[in-house]
């Protein structure tokens, strides 16, 4: 334990120093951190970019042998995937064919019709090639079935037998079908997908060259047709391939062909990320982003919320990058799929520390220096941070010892990530936070100064420097509902949707994401595909081929052996005599005038060596995937290409023409004037499609910008961004508009004004149904809490007409009424003159008005007070905490007041009923009316009043009659508690009296005695005989006057000037605990049904106690001056102090969440309506706050006349109504929004 404590202290001290350091030198530390991040990320440059592109490896053909399965260590240059036989050997026969010499009589279709027609003969040649009884049939890759679901491919791709594809597949490898085809282009293009395609198209597959290079187009300027015949071999027989190569070369010699033939390329394909793989990945990322969103949403009370959220995310991300970089540096190359483990790493590392740090720093006292705040915040949380980190490291260590490679690797990454994250939190985030806090302070300062300067001069007491001007009020009786209130209010669905969209900027984000994805697709797509698409579109636009092509429904025969024509084409004899290139050139040169148009030239360059490289990298995987063969994690070997050159005579081209070719063909000779626009179109497209894409992109960008602008205008119509509302201390009127600038909806709450009292209201009590108020004149009024009707008026002199428990009613109401009127008339101006010094006025108006002869009597009593009852000048509470502030400000008048109502004055003619008479004071019959009511409680329809004379009275609230009274005590009753059938009265001399109210039914049938038999809010009928008996009197409950008395849950808690709190049991008046811990008098106590006890004292401290054990749970210093009011909810403690600050504390941790600056003199009036709704009083208004966020929700103005009056008392009724007094009026405010609060 000692070690732990010492460790804890050391850690705390270290963090404190570190915080000081960070806040002192922010810029150098941020620079240092950035440098270290970059250094750690540097090794990442060596890592290959993630992607699924294929990897190549080249070997020589000559000494090729199938690589063995086991890895050979000596061959280090050999990649590790190069093991075992490949999936297939790809042999491509590259055919270049041209009609040469070109004749002006030829039509464009001739460019490709006859060259394509020759594919059938070459195919036959290849198929029938035999080398020492080895045929292609034996060597080639036998495929069985096309995948189901590829019906449209069925007609063109071989479905069984050898995997051998060529353009001939379009016509089922049958020459007759080819010859009968009226429109070749349409046949070729009918299989092309419409729209944007990303993978290899059928045309690419069959032609084996990129679509643009095939030359199968009407606008082919070069007039050379290129295509390949692709053969997939399952086993490699060098001699067979060589003989095939020799044979084809012999038949179709390519004169100037210098293609290298000694290299074999092995292409390895990585695992393809399919949709199936992506869905879980995307899900994890969605969860990750939700996590980040919900985490960063909690950052609050800082200058720039988004800046800090960004810093938090940057911290986590760069710690991940650092960990990957460091691992790479130490040779731990990641074999895991980074994208997959990344979300889990983020979740493991978490954003919690960052949030905890922010919260802790924010909750430090605002008036401290920034450096100290950071340091204190850090050291407060140091222990929990270290503990969490140790726990996480332990968990990861356990994970490491599972000895599963994947988990071990993950754990290594996580450890490095955790450490680097800790480093970044400590250096990067803390520094950013310090900068942010400093900015906030500056902003706060700037805002405060003008507010102070603009303070209205007629303020009576300019004691508070942080005063804010009263908020602009649109009109009385209306509430300006501030913006964050749509958390609480029911809005129309439509509006909510709009708000939601605007709040989350959903539309903007979706559009942005969409753009990024679109651009990504554009980039990721092979340019060849795009080009084919464009070319295809051009071809489709051409006016050719309106004649419908009969669909080929038959299955493409791989070996149309039975076809009669095939035997003929086996022989190379009908082929045109292979001319050497130079010969043909010479031939062309011989008659240049005959061929004015450019003659097709077949050239072989190095670019033809590996023409497959220009294909989409998905070319081979998609070809094989049609036969349910995956290339993922496998490789294929591509053999050197076999070149074949075909020269066709014009005559042959004309012979193979289809009759429709000439029909629909455009004029063969381009007219320079303009009819032959096709070429220019094609060239335009060929050259300028990049421009086109750029223009498209530009256009899209412009549209996007316009769209975003419109959205912005629609959704954020108002001063968006102009009200930079800092989230520091919440002040009233700070938020005219929320961050997004919506016009706040205005709903109206009309406060109900309860008038009738002639003087300031002193006591308020309510039990939900009824509301009793007592003014300084001593008049008690009972109101209906629902409607605000005044039910009963009990005048001050009502004592005269009703006597004690015997109910001897002397009807002197008329006299009483007369009696009262002048007093009220005098009292009115008095109040206006001294609005604040209420304490000085209470009894005097009555005195001056009617009974001037009483003043000497009061004076004598003053002098005769025992010295023990003389109060200290600091004053005390008379049962209502509101007065505390005034007492504190004007201590002298309070001194004069307490002695004024001596107990003996209360003696009356009905005194004979009382069993105990205070012997030391003679009865004075004429003085009883001027003892004022100091405390009042209301239960059922009984009002209990405690008078300054020490008399306890029970009134019937409905009838206004005195039911009983008790004059056992002589010292004034400062506080009352009425619980069940018991009344507890605290007296000025520090004694505590317990009374029992007994109700005797007149018929004697029922008698309620036990505490359990009485309902909590008993309703007494008027016939009942009610008696009130003193059961126990604790004479010296406290050494000094009792200031606070609260009762709940069977406990009575008293707080006194003697710095202690005492807890009594209600039933037997037994003192359970004396709680010591305050260094000043107790000024506020809160206890509720759940036995939560909190106390606040003059030292500004708030203590939370455990009522069951009497131990102190927490102890915080919150206020500079007395704590005037305390309320607890299940999660927080709300306190107000003489410094007019309302502080909200977290109940479990004791951390200050935030504070609200109140107006002068209104500090003590607060109440909690629900778990999250706080109401505070102000200058003529009450304000509603969201407890969770500290946002001002509404301000309700109570009335026009209430300008200068501040709300001093505030009572929250059970039906969500609020009663507050200002001056001599009461106001009843219903809070309808609370009723409708939802989700």
């Amino acid at each position, binding site marked *: 334990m000692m070690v732990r404590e010492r460790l804890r202290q050391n850690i705390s001290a270290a963090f404190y120093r570190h915080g000081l350091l960070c806040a002192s030198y922010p810029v150098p530390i941020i620079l240092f951190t950035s440098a270290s991040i970059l250094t750690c990320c540097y090794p990442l440059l060596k890592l290959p970019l993630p992607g699924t592109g294929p990897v190549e490896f080249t070997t020589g053909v000559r000494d090729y042998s199938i690589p063995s399965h086991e890895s050979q260590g000596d061959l280090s240059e050999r990649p590790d995937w190069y093991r075992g036989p490949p999936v297939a050997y790809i042999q491509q026969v590259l055919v270049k064919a041209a009609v040469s010499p070109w004749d002006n009589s030829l039509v464009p279709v001739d460019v490709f019709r006859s060259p394509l027609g020759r594919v059938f003969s070459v195919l036959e040649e290849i198929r029938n090639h035999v080398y020492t009884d080895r045929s292609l049939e034996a060597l080639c890759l036998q495929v069985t079935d096309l*995948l189901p*679901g590829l019906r449209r491919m069925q007609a063109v791709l071989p479905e069984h037998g050898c995997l051998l594809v060529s353009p001939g597949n379009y016509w089922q490898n049958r020459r007759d079908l080819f010859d009968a085809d009226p429109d070749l282009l349409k046949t070729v293009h009918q299989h092309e997908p419409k729209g944007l395609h990303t993978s290899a198209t059928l045309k690419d597959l069959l032609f084996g060259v990129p679509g643009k290079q095939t030359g199968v187009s009407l606008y082919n300027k070069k007039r050379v047709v290129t295509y390949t015949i692709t053969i997939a071999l399952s086993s490699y027989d060098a001699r067979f391939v060589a003989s095939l190569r020799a044979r084809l070369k012999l038949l179709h010699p390519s004169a100037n062909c210098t293609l290298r033939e000694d290299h074999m390329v092995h292409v390895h394909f990585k*695992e*393809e990320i*399919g*949709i*199936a*793989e992506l*869905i*879980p990945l995307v*899900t*994890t990322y969605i*969860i*990750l982003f*939700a*996590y980040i969103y*919900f*985490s960063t*949403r*909690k950052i609050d009370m800082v200058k720039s919320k988004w800046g800090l959220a960004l810093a938090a995310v940057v911290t986590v991300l760069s710690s991940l990058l650092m960990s990957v970089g460091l691992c790479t540096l130490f040779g731990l190359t990641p074999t895991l799929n980074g994208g*997959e483990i990344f*979300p*889990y790493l983020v*979740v493991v590392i*978490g*954003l919690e520390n960052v949030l905890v740090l922010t919260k802790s720093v924010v909750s430090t006292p605002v008036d401290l220096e920034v450096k100290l705040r950071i340091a204190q915040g850090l050291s407060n949380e140091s222990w929990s941070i270290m503990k969490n980190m140790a726990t996480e490291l332990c*968990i990861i260590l*356990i*994970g490491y010892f*599972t*000895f*599963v*490679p*994947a*988990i071990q690797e993950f754990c290594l990454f996580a450890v490095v990530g955790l450490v680097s994250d800790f480093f970044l939190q400590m250096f990067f985030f803390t520094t950013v936070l310090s900068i942010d806090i400093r900015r906030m302070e500056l902003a706060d300062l700037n805002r405060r100064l003008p507010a102070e300067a603009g303070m209205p001069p007629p303020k009576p007491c300019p004691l508070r420097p942080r005063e804010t001007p009263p908020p602009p009020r649109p009109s009385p009786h209306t509430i300006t509902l501030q913006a964050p209130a749509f958390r609480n209010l029911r809005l129309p669905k439509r509006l909510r949707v709009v708000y939601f969209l605007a709040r989350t900027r959903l539309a903007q984000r979706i559009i942005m994401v969409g753009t990024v994805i679109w651009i990504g697709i554009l980039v990721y797509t092979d340019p060849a595909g795009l080009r084919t698409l464009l070319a295809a579109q051009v071809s489709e636009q051409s006016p050719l081929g309106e004649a419908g092509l009969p669909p080929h429904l038959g299955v493409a025969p791989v070996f149309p052996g039975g076809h009669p024509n095939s035997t003929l084409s086996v022989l190379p004899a009908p082929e045109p005599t292979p001319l050497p290139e130079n010969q043909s050139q010479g031939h062309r040169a011989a008659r240049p005038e005959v061929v004015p148009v450019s003659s097709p030239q077949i050239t072989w360059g190095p670019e033809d060596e590996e023409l497959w490289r220009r294909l989409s990298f998905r070319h081979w995987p998609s070809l094989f*995937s049609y036969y*349910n063969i*995956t290339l*993922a994690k496998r490789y294929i070997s591509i053999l050197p290409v076999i070149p074949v050159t075909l020269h066709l005579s014009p005559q042959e081209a004309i012979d193979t023409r289809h009759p429709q070719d000439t029909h629909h063909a455009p004029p063969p000779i381009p007219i320079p004037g303009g009819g032959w626009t096709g070429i220019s179109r094609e060239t335009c497209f060929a050259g300028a499609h990049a421009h086109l894409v750029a223009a498209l992109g530009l256009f899209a960008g412009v549209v996007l910008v316009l769209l975003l602008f419109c959205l912005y205008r629609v959704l954020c119509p108002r001063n968006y961004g102009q009200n930079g509302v800092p989230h520091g201390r919440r002040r009233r009127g700070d938020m005219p508009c929320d961050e997004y600038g919506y016009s706040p909806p205005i709903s109206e709450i009309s406060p109900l004004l309860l008038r009738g009292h002639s003087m300031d209201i002193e006591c308020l009590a309510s039990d939900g149904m009824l509301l009793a108020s007592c003014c300084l004149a001593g008049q008690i009024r009972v109101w209906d809490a629902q409607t605000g009707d005044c039910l009963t008026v009990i005048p001050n002199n009502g004592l005269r007409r009703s006597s004690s428990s015997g109910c001897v009613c002397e009807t002197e109401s008329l006299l009483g009424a007369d009696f009262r009127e002048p007093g009220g008339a005098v009292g009115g101006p008095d109040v206006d003159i001294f609005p604040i010094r209420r304490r000085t006025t209470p009894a005097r108006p009555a005195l001056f008005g009617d009974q001037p002869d009483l003043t000497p009597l009061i004076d004598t009593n003053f002098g005769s007070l025992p010295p023990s009852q003389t109060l200290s000048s600091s004053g005390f509470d008379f049962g209502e905490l509101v007065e505390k502030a005034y007492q504190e400000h004007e201590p002298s008048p309070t001194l004069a007041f307490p002695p004024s109502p001596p107990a003996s004055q209360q003696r009356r003619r009905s005194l004979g009923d009382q069993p105990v008479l205070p012997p030391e004071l003679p009865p004075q019959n004429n003085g009883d009316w001027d003892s004022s009511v100091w405390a009042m409680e209301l239960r059922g329809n009984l009002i209990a009043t405690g008078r300054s004379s020490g008399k306890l009275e029970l009134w019937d609230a409905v009838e206004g009659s005195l039911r009983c009274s008790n004059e056992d005590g002589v010292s004034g009753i400062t506080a009352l508690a009425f619980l069940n059938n018991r009344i507890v009265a605290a007296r000025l001399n520090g004694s505590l009296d317990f009374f029992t109210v007994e109700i005797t039914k007149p018929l004697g049938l029922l008698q309620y005695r036990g505490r359990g038999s009485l309902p909590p809010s008993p309703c007494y009928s008027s016939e009942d005989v009610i008696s009130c008996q003193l059961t126990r009197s604790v004479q010296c409950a406290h050494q000094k006057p009792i200031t606070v008395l609260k009762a709940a849950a069977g406990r009575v808690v008293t707080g006194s000037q003697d710095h202690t709190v005492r807890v009594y049991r209600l039933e037997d008046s037994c003192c359970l605990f004396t709680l010591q811990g305050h260094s000043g008098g107790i000024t506020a106590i809160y206890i509720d049904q759940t036995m939560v006890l909190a106390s606040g004292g003059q030292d500004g401290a708030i203590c939370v106690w455990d009522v069951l054990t009497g131990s102190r749970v927490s102890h915080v210093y919150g206020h500079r001056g007395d704590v005037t009011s305390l309320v607890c909810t299940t999660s927080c403690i709300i306190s107000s102090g003489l410094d007019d600050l309302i502080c909200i504390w977290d109940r479990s941790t004791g951390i200050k969440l935030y504070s609200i600056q109140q107006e002068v003199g209104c500090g003590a009036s607060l109440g909690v*309506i*629900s*778990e*999250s709704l706080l109401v505070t009083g102000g200058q003529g208004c009450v304000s509603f706050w969201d407890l969770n966020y500290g946002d001002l929700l509404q301000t309700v103005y109570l009335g026009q006349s209430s300008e200068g009056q501040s709300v001093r008392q505030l009572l929250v009724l*059970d*039906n*969500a109504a609020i009663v507050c007094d200002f001056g001599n009026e009461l106001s009843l405010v219903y809070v309808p929004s*609370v*009723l409708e*609060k*939802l*989700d």
Partner: protein
Amino acid sequence: FSEVSDVLLSGGAPMRRGPYISMITNRTMNLLIRAAMLFMVGVFLALVLNLLQVQRNVTLFPPDVISSIFSSAWWVPPCCGTAAAFIGLLYPCMDRRLGEPHKLKREWSNVMRCVAVFVGINHASAKVDFANNVQLSLTLAALSVGLWWTFDRSRSGFGLGVIIATLATLATQLLVYNGVFRYTSPDFLYIRSWLPCIFFAGVITVGNIGRQLALYEYKVSQEKTHQD
């Protein structure tokens, strides 16, 4: 056949109506909304996690994969959804009955973290190659208990999780025994031995979500009672 998380919980125990359903109509509405949300969460998780399991045996054929998501068994996602709704409603109900105070912070970010860890456990069970089944099961069990400790830490949660996981495992055994579906390599009677761990983690996760959802209702009702 693939592993099916959270299946059949509803089969074992019929959807019990909470006692507070009949009290106030508004609560009924609230309950329905919560149940619907939980149902959707369950269906979504079932689809995704099922896909994770299916993936290992699937080669890359984009047109086919979409159909394979739905082809496995149409009844799996609804079952998971019902189970999720049931568990998610049961947890707050239990909390209320037992009155056990929830110590941990109730926040959406925590819930999200919990869901992420749950998906991670599933991911690990599907993708990581373990030396043997015992090791896999032990690791997953440790992860599940860690999940509970990190995000729940209530005894009622643990008990409920264990009970439901046992019931669900039994039900799965019965189903496999009757030949409704089967596992490729069963090592614990008819099923995989890590299935109970997955069930347990799923119950904890869904319970967490349910509690978080109930928090709203709780807040509202608290205000209601306050006003009444």
